[in-house]
């Protein structure tokens, strides 16, 4: 009926319940993920109107943002967080929603456990009151963050009112060099197009460098789509996707699996389909990336220098750079390598999966964390924690002098007591370097797990490639 369509349009079209002139589309939501921070007011809204959750079986909740990452016997950070967790538990019980709470063996960061349990599947529409819902787009799902009013809408109707986004093709061709990974691709992209560069668009990542990534790495890329302002990020599902999903708890089984894979194979942008905009990136030219400023677009190669004020447009760009560098305590034009580091955080929905932990442990094995540096390693889920321990990674981290924590968002959002002190510098594998994001006055440099581990050993920012190949 129509011409060639993009992956986004295929998933979108499949989920439009109704579209009337003068109103946004009514879009069906296949999977609604819920956590403690952005849901209590939505459940209150349902109660106030006497509504139920329309499809509890399509709604899954966990606790992650304000949860402790020290052993569970220890208290939650404060009474308010305790009350928030209790409220989620009560709401889920009252409305019949499955909850993976702190006592569950499957608890973890919402964007880690969705895929892990096989809830995240190609072609699904997935929403959550959390901007990093874009993570799930790595499977060819249309996944995006929503506010609490919309959480209430989805709870009540399993639908959202949505204007159709524009499309942005991000083509990444070429081979990544050793020591350069998914986090470096996405930081380089955001540095190129800016934090508002993809506003109003759904990104589709494609090209040989994207196809060569494993699922965990694809999740890292899609996770930070929102940091470029994108509504969502998507990658067409392929054999890598199917292999990763097969056998997971909520993935289809038997004949249903075969049928699903056949359907999922059609989820690709047709040849000749038009994107509203396109950007290209050469993977072979990328170096490990790190941020120097107070938004994720302020990134440079780890071998690079902090920009000088003269290098950016006079006016608001220059003012923003001056303000950012003042907050960060960094000199314009200075090499970023050599910058001292107080804390290293390895975790978050961006980089807390097995591949991330293996990369960090590989660099830390047989080495020690530099004196005076605090290192937190926070697995993304309890399942990842168990797997890492089965592989002995916890011993590697502890022997190096790092803290091995329980699963949760932890210092990415600093709601649970894990936080920086004013003025401290952290190399962090998380997704946001906004002022105060990891604790008031804290200074965050975003980087890959490898670059973070290298900083832990050196006590300063260093090119991780100089430490690769094990201990000499």
């Amino acid at each position, binding site marked *: 009926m129509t011409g060639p369509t993009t992956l986004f349009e295929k998933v979108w079209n499949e989920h439009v*319940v109704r579209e009337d002139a003068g109103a*946004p589309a009514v879009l069906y939501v296949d999977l609604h993920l819920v956590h403690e921070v952005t849901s209590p007011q939505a459940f209150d809204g349902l109660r106030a109107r006497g509504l139920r959750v329309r499809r509890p079986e399509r709604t899954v909740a966990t606790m992650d943002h304000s949860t402790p990452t020290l052993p569970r016997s220890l208290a939650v950070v404060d009474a308010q967080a305790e009350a*928030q967790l209790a409220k989620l538990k009560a709401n889920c019980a009252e409305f019949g929603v499955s909850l993976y709470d702190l006592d569950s063996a499957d608890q973890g960061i919402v964007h880690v456990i969705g895929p892990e349990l096989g809830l995240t599947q190609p072609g699904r529409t997935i929403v959550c009151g959390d901007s990093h819902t874009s993570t799930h787009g790595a499977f060819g799902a249309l996944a995006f*963050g929503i506010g609490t009013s919309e959480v*209430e809408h989805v709870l009540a109707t399993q639908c959202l009112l949505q204007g159709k986004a524009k499309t942005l093709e991000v083509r990444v061709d070429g081979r990544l060099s050793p020591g350069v990974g998914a986090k470096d691709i996405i930081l380089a992209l955001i540095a190129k197009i800016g934090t*508002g560069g993809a506003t109003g668009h759904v990104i589709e990542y494609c090209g040989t460098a994207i196809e060569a990534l494993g699922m965990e790495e694809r999740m890292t890329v899609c996770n930070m789509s929102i940091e470029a302002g994108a509504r969502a990020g998507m990658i067409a599902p392929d054999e890598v996707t199917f292999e990763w999903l097969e056998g997971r708890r909520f993935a289809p089984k038997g004949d249903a699996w075969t049928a699903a894979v056949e359907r999922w194979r059609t989820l690709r942008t047709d040849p000749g389909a038009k994107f509203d905009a396109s950007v290209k990136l050469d993977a072979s030219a990328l170096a490990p990336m790190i941020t120097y400023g107070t938004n994720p677009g302020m990134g440079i190669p780890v071998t690079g220098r902090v920009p000088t004020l003269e290098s950016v447009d006079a006016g608001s760009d220059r003012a923003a750079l001056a303000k950012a560098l003042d907050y960060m305590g960094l000199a314009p034009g200075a090499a970023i390598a050599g910058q001292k580091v107080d804390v290293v955080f390895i975790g978050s929905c961006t980089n807390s999966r097995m591949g991330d932990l293996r990369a960090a442990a590989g660099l830390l094995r047989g080495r020690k964390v530099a004196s005076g540096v605090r290192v937190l390693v926070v697995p993304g889920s309890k399942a990842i924690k168990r797997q890492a321990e089965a592989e002995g990674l916890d011993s590697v981290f502890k022997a190096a002098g790092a803290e091995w924590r329980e699963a949760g968002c932890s210092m990415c959002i600093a*709601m649970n007591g894990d936080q920086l002190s004013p003025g401290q510098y952290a190399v962090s594998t998380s997704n946001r370097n906004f002022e*105060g994001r990891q604790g008031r006055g804290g200074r965050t440099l975003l980087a890959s797990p490898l670059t973070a581990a290298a900083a832990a050993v050196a006590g300063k920012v260093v090119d991780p490639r100089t430490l690769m190949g094990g201990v000499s």
Partner: protein
Amino acid sequence: MKREAREAFTTLTSTFVVLPADNVDTDQIIPARFLKVTDKVGLGANVFADWRLGPDGTPNPDFPLNRPDAAGARILVAGANFGCGSSREHAPWALVGWGLRAIIAPSFADIFKQNAMKNGLLPVAVDAAAHARLLEARRADPRASVTVDLPAQTVTLGGKPLAGFAIDPFAKECLVHGVDELGYLLDRAADIDRYEAKHA
């Protein structure tokens, strides 16, 4: 059906506060440590907490919202990409809690814009020239007043037309009539039933 009434937005005339920085993120609007609440009230006290208040809670006299001439302003003039970052609806709750009803900026982050409109906080995107004139007018006279006319989709400065602005017609309808979107969705129950039956 079950519709929730809220304060309608038609025209608003007010003095304005200027926060010129681009890319003001939701962590600045309301830092994460204030997200442990389970209701929407009281967040206004913590809006821009880390910029507005010192570590000991003393107001920073230089912060635009703290200056005496900010009192009573119901409009914020901000920089580009305002509200980038997280999906926290606590950001508009905090801005509304402080007393704001409209934000005029060159551009807005998507989720923030959606969240704002659902809380009667009108995002008004204007071009660079109109934005510059607002900043200029405020410098010349801190009591300069601006009118945002939502039905006409115009901004007037000192009685003279300044700019038009675009808004999704459906969101406009909800704002002008003070109704929320959930009522509309609930009214689509039959369509949703049909969709579910077809896709079961």
